[in-house]
């Protein structure tokens, strides 16, 4: 059952990388097998949680021993404008006796308690490795509970050991397609209803974008899943257009919504000025193609023109300050691409980026855009990054939290651009926020101080001392 699902996901025709593969390669899946002793990154369950947990008014119950939730809850920056129930961690906390005797009854009781105490519109139940091994049938328990309790109880079958975080993202998407999307009808629909897939409202980023949509007259019917509400997600099938944000992770959702409900989709990004404008433009154009009022395009162009001139004006003060500053950019792939042009527009020099998660087409695109000079690192080891930074080959590193200490221990400025970040970088305002954060850290006076030799170390050369004064 789960294996069929995984094979189905591996077969995804909407995935550009997949189209180039032979049948045998497809079957092997898209993730490189993990090397014991040299692996990093989350598991499939982690990936499923990332996609679904932003549905803020639902209860998220983890069926497993304490590690899966106890070590991991309350650690993401996804924000909600209403219900905070998603921040409450629920787990069946399986004990030795549950492992031996089975945890299905406990799971049912847990679901019942949650429904009685919190009355959420739905409960998501996450399968984990241990009950998957002992054979707890969460699908059956959820079905039974839904019937008994009169509420959607949704099994998320993505135990950690089936694969990577990326696979978990996709399995969560399948869960929504199978159990959620299409189960609730909206009160009313409009010709400008859109669904955004793969936007998690980290640090409140969606709120930098949504006012622009409102202004243009585009209604955000459903967001999967940032600042999400269960019923809104369940109405996604009535959208006129789907936008895929992080296309690699949830491409299956966009394509299958097209297949099932005839909703066209496009890949867009909210990061960077030109990408943001392209996204608004495409969204308006596709809505008009599907029958929305033609005035939508003009309104979109009006907003784009105003916001673009405003953002470039706001970025102008950073240009002289960023002149000659070299950036190492390490992110998951696609999203960094949209940031590069904006950062360069603000005067920064991007030295290179990691392309570990990029497809061959992506790499070709980067080469075309940036030329051969530009570095594309496939598998750069932490030690090598540290060396580059310590040898003063870059002025700042931008990456996810996992690699922050490579930079900080080399006493080189670092900026978090991943999912634990505290600042919103999406939209036009977001790119200004990003430049402000870069400027703040680059101009902080600590960098000179922390590089000073200790009193017991040999005195620095005269010129250095003078520079330090």
């Amino acid at each position, binding site marked *: 059952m789960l294996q069929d699902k995984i094979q189905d996901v591996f077969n995804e025709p909407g995935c550009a990388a997949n189209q180039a593969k032979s049948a045998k390669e497809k079957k092997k899946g898209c993730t490189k097998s993990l090397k014991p002793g040299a*692996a990093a990154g989350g*598991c499939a369950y982690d990936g499923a949680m990332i996609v679904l947990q932003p549905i803020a008014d639902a209860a998220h119950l983890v069926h497993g*021993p304490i*590690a899966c939730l106890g070590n991991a809850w309350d650690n993401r920056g996804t924000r909600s404008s209403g219900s905070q129930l998603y921040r409450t961690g629920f787990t069946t906390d399986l004990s030795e006796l549950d492992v031996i005797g089975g945890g299905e009854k406990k799971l049912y009781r847990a679901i019942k308690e949650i429904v009685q105490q919190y009355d959420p519109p739905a409960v998501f139940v996450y399968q984990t490795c241990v009950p998957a091994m002992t054979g707890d049938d969460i699908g059956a328990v959820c079905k039974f509970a839904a019937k008994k309790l009169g509420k959607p109880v949704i099994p998320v079958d993505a135990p950690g050991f089936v694969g990577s975080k990326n696979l978990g993202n996709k399995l969560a998407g399948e869960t929504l397609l199978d159990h959620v999307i299409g189960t609730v009808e909206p009160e009313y629909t409009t010709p400008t209803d859109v669904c955004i897939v793969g936007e998690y409202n980290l640090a409140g980023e969606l709120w930098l974008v949504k006012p622009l949509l409102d202004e243009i007259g585009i209604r955000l019917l459903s967001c999967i899943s940032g600042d999400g509400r269960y019923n809104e997600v369940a109405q996604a099938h009535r959208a006129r257009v789907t936008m895929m944000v992080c296309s690699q992770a949830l491409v299956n959702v966009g394509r299958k919504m097209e297949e099932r409900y005839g909703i066209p989709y496009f890949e867009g990004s909210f990061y960077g000025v030109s990408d943001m404008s392209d996204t608004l433009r495409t969204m308006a154009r596709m809505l008009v193609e599907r029958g929305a009022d033609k005035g939508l395009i003009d309104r979109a162009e009006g907003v784009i023109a105003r916001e673009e001139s405003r953002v470039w004006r706001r970025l102008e003060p950073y240009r002289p300050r960023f002149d000659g500053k070299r950036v190492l950019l390490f992110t998951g792939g696609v999203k960094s691409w949209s940031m590069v042009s904006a950062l360069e527009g603000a005067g920064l020099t991007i030295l290179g980026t990691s392309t570990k998660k990029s497809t061959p087409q992506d790499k070709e695109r980067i080469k075309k855009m940036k030329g051969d000079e530009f570095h594309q690192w496939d598998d750069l080891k932490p030690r090598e990054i540290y060396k580059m930074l310590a040898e003063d080959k870059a002025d700042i590193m931008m990456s996810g939290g996992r690699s922050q200490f490579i930079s900080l221990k080399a006493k080189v400025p670092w900026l978090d651009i991943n999912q634990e970040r505290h600042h919103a970088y999406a939209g036009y305002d977001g790119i200004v926020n990003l430049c402000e954060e870069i400027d703040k850290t680059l101009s902080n006076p600590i960098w000179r101080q922390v590089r000073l030799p200790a009193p017991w170390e040999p005195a620095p050369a005269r010129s250095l001392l003078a520079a330090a004064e």
Partner: protein
Amino acid sequence: MSHIQRTTGQRFPNAAKAASTNPLKMSQPLGAALAYLGVDRCLPLFHGSQGCTAFGLVLLVRHFREAIPLQTTAMDQVSTILGGYDNLEQALRTIVERNNPAMIGVATTGVTETKGEDMGGQYSLFRQRNPDLAGTALVFANTPDFAGGFEEGFGKAVTAIVERLVEPSPTTVKTQLNVLAGSHLSPGDVEELRDIIESFGLSPIFLPDLSLSMSGRQPSDFTATSLGGVTVEQIRSMGASVATLVIGEHMRIAGAALELKTDVPSHFFSRLTGLEASDRLIRTLAEISGRPVAAKLRRQRESLVDGMLDGHFFYSRKRIAVALEPDLLYAVTSFLADMGAEVVAAVSPTQNAVLEKLKAATVMVGDHSDVETLARDADLIVSNSHGRQGAARLGVPLHRMGLPMFDRLGAGLKVSVGYRGTRELMFEIGNLFLSREMDHDAHPTPHGGDGHACGGGSCGCSAV
């Protein structure tokens, strides 16, 4: 199955619910990883799915704000069913080739324990098949996620290190002292203890020594293993020490193993926070060393006594709810009781013998949602950073202790042991009460006037 928990005497009530809500408990392997991180040039390795490692890693990074070396055997579905030895062997070999650590500390997880991997057998098999890696110390601990918790896992890793590495010694070094430092001691606490012990002319060997690895290091080069900590050589030489201090209930088994193996006499301390508890430590050290107590410690004691006199006004009959790992829970509730406060609720993540000694109106095994229920009328909650959501809902101030503490800087460097540490903790908590009492507007009296809780005088303000 060696990992089945000892059940001792009384069992405290569990919340009678199936859904643990806002868990207080963390897993055994995570505790084991922290213990291993107190060994120099060590790389902890989780025998399980890669997610087990990723979550644990993120939690420790957020708490310590330090690079955390932690690896995984990356078990997938197939290896889980067929057996994990190949993954384990490959992981150990890869780690040695890439990072050449002095020690690899392996902790099993729920995945490998459900399968029932025979770790003893796998150790022997690995050593047999890989004689070229004889120079790397290897320690295995059985730490299933579905039993025990953070403290138990920490204890098991320390016990495993003792059993695998410590050797009996024919000679005794009169100035060498072992300290089995439980997980309730922060790196800052360990540093404080080193200071105290060295003032008696003794050289302590801490197992583990987080003060050297987790208190903020600036490496001269990139390192993928722990940087600093007790060395494997020092651990091997623990048999030559004059005595062992065992700190915390969850270090008892390790302490017993060490004494059994080396005949070094041990002294047990259930806590080191509080005046009397600190007095006992100082008396013991004076006896072991035969040296007088240093002037610095005498001044610190005087200052603590004086601080208790100044501070007791604000502690008397304060109602406090505490939710922490068992040994820290014991240390903190005892200290609060010492100061005249009432512990209305003590919540532990796991059943533990130490709970029998707690002085609290309610003692239970539960989670943060239980704390939220029990702390409705409390003046203060003491817990880790996860307690902040519930404390905010109740409008009760939260004093953060334990792990994880991801919304405070310097979480690992807090000191709450010895005279100085007790004084710091007493002032910090006392200031929370004091600031509430000085906050005239926030607490109007029944008369509606500008109420004042201190009654004038004790808080230093001039209100009547």
